[in-house]
């Protein structure tokens, strides 16, 4: 765990020379971790492309990007929460609510400006996120329990609200559906949106004080508090942001698929966590990046597609994803142990 603590400059007191050096080491290691997942992705694409060259044509790559986009956005939100040593299982239900709201609003009022729909979707998500955050920070209920509860409750609300109805693509304005299916300069709009979101969240976590504080909290809540971090407020805001991103994912879900009912996105919760964890976000908090999580989402999507392309029995998909997740956390653990050892050796050398 000390390896993770070192990645949280927010709590490191005036960096001594060895502290800075240690941080450089951890920085390198975690960059290597992200390179590792990029490498795995490249390898997968290369192998698939060699066996089936059509895998690399524009259409199939477009589909890859489209499939991963919404998961990448959800994984970015999940990362914010996971970093603080919490978890948000309710994303899939928030997504369903927001997706259905966007669909109904646009079916009933086709002239509604689309940015308003996005804002409302994110607002709904943020409201759900603040409920989670409030219960976790003020109510002191463990995040796993809170979000398991809201996973159920919000899905129930979605069922009550839709009451068996569903939104159909025909009733939605084309300008909205274009967001989900169209492209700008040959790149799917959805992928561009995901890219922007991931970059924004990534920079927030990298460069903003409050972003760094999320790592500090996840590494050691007590140390973070003693260092003056307002932990409750930060964790609350992480849940709100994750909720807003799930809401955004919901609106995009409607734009992409057109058809929405109360079961939209059910079961996504574990896939999203899996994407983040495969991308190097530790489930115990304090380390990982949004870029890793987004690439993790892309990797999971690519596995599915390449198995289809390679005509491997589709039934192997889930097994492959599960195996990948376990390999990824085992690898993380191994790196963590090595890093701990290296840091200890280094400080011992310094002391001697």
């Amino acid at each position, binding site marked *: 765990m000390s390896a993770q603590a070192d990645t949280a400059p927010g709590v490191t007191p005036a960096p001594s020379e060895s502290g800075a050096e240690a941080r450089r080491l951890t920085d390198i290691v975690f960059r290597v971790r992200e390179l590792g997942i990029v490498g795995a992705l490249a390898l997968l694409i290369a192998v698939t492309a060699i066996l089936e060259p059509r895998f690399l044509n524009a259409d199939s790559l477009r589909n890859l990007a489209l499939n991963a986009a919404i998961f990448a956005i959800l994984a970015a939100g999940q990362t914010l929460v996971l970093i*603080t*040593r*919490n*978890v948000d299982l309710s994303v899939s239900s928030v997504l369903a609510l927001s997706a259905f709201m966007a669909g109904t609003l646009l079916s009933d009022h086709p002239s509604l400006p689309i940015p308003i729909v996005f804002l409302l979707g994110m607002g709904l998500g943020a409201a759900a996120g603040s409920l989670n955050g409030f*219960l*976790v*920070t*003020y*109510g*002191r*209920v*463990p*995040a*796993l*329990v*809170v979000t*398991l*509860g*809201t*996973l*159920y*409750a*919000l*899905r*129930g*609300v979605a*069922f*009550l609200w839709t*009451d068996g109805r569903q939104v159909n693509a025909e009733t939605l304005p084309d300008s909205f559906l274009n967001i989900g299916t169209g492209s700008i300069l040959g790149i799917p709009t959805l992928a561009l949106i995901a890219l922007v979101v991931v970059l924004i969240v990534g920079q927030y976590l990298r460069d903003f004080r409050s972003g760094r504080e999320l790592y500090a909290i996840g590494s050691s*809540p*007590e140390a973070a*508090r003693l260092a003056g971090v307002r*932990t*409750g407020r930060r*964790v609350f805001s992480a849940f709100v942001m994750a909720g807003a991103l799930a809401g955004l994912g919901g609106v995009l879900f409607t734009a992409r698929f057109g058809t929405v009912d109360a079961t939209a996105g059910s*079961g996504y919760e*574990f896939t999203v*966590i*899996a994407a983040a*964890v495969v991308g190097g976000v*530790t*489930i*115990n908090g304090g380390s990982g990046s949004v870029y890793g999580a987004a690439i993790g989402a892309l990797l999971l999507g690519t596995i599915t597609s390449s198995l289809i392309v390679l005509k491997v*029995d589709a*039934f*192997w*998909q*889930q*097994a*492959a*994803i*599960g*195996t990948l*997740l*376990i390999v990824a*956390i*085992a690898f993380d*653990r191994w790196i963590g142990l090595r890093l701990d050892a290296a840091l200890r050796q280094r400080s011992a050398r310094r002391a001697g």
Partner: protein
Amino acid sequence: MPAESPFYARALRWETLIVGLIAVAWVVGGFLSSDFYSADSFTTASLDLSEVALMALPLALVVVAAEIDLSVASVLALSSACMGELWNAGQPIELIMVECIAIGAACGAVNGILVTRFGLPSLAVTIGTLSLFRGLAFVVIGDQSVTDFPATWTDRAFGNFGGTAIPNTMVLFAALAIAFGVLLHATGFGRKVFAIGANEEAARFSGVRVKRIKFWLFVMSGAVAGLAGVVISLRNSTAAANVGTGFELTAVTAVVLGGVSIFGGRGTIGGVVLALVLLGSINKALTLSDSISSYWIQIVTGTLLIGSVLVPNLVVRAQEARTHSFHGRRQWPWRTRVDTSRPQEESA
């Protein structure tokens, strides 16, 4: 709880609160439908919950040891899938049952090894094996289903005990509940499970073989999930890979609602059994009702789950505010031993 108010403490015992909630559910259920009190309604309500109830028992022990097993529903599916394939292969059904339980135990052993030997967090591991075992179930049986199990056994799984309205699966559940209850509350093994959950490091230094015990907890969880796979296949006369999707969340809900702390170290099998009764009662009351949509089941379940931890927390918070003011602020919202509010002294 303050020692000077024993009655108050007893009234706030989590099990007592659940009994109260069950009473409320039964009164409301009676108002909602006249069929609620029928023997048939009891039978169907408990049948529907059979597998989740079985899996919740060992899961409670896993959670008391401060770990979690989210893969149980996938183990159930893998067991069901294997059961179908082995039956197609012409093996005798009794042998298949033993094999399926063994397969479940093997799945649990995989979880256990990954958690204890590799030192990986069980939440992440079992999200992985949730996907892996479900995937293997599909690999084994594909999208086929096997439905021609012998009637003697399907009747046994679906039927009632003797001439009563108690389903056989509930008799099985009761037997296992007693077994796990004794294991957790009356044996040295159970003491050690509590010790691990309360403070793993302290347990290790007191000579508790933490890894070994955790390993066997995962094996038990897997084996019972394998058994649940046998039960669900026979009860529905259908073995398929897609059975029991989402059961892991219901099982966790039952465990937490039953007063087991998600951080470990606290909880009783009795509480989990009562929580299952409560969940079953709510399900039945709202399913039978014409006036209230059954979608409310999920909303009520979710709210209860959160409330079960939140309300006692708020009570404690109010008490702390009254006695020594700043004490409450020194604790971590997400790391607090929230369940100090549930005055059970099992680990003491």
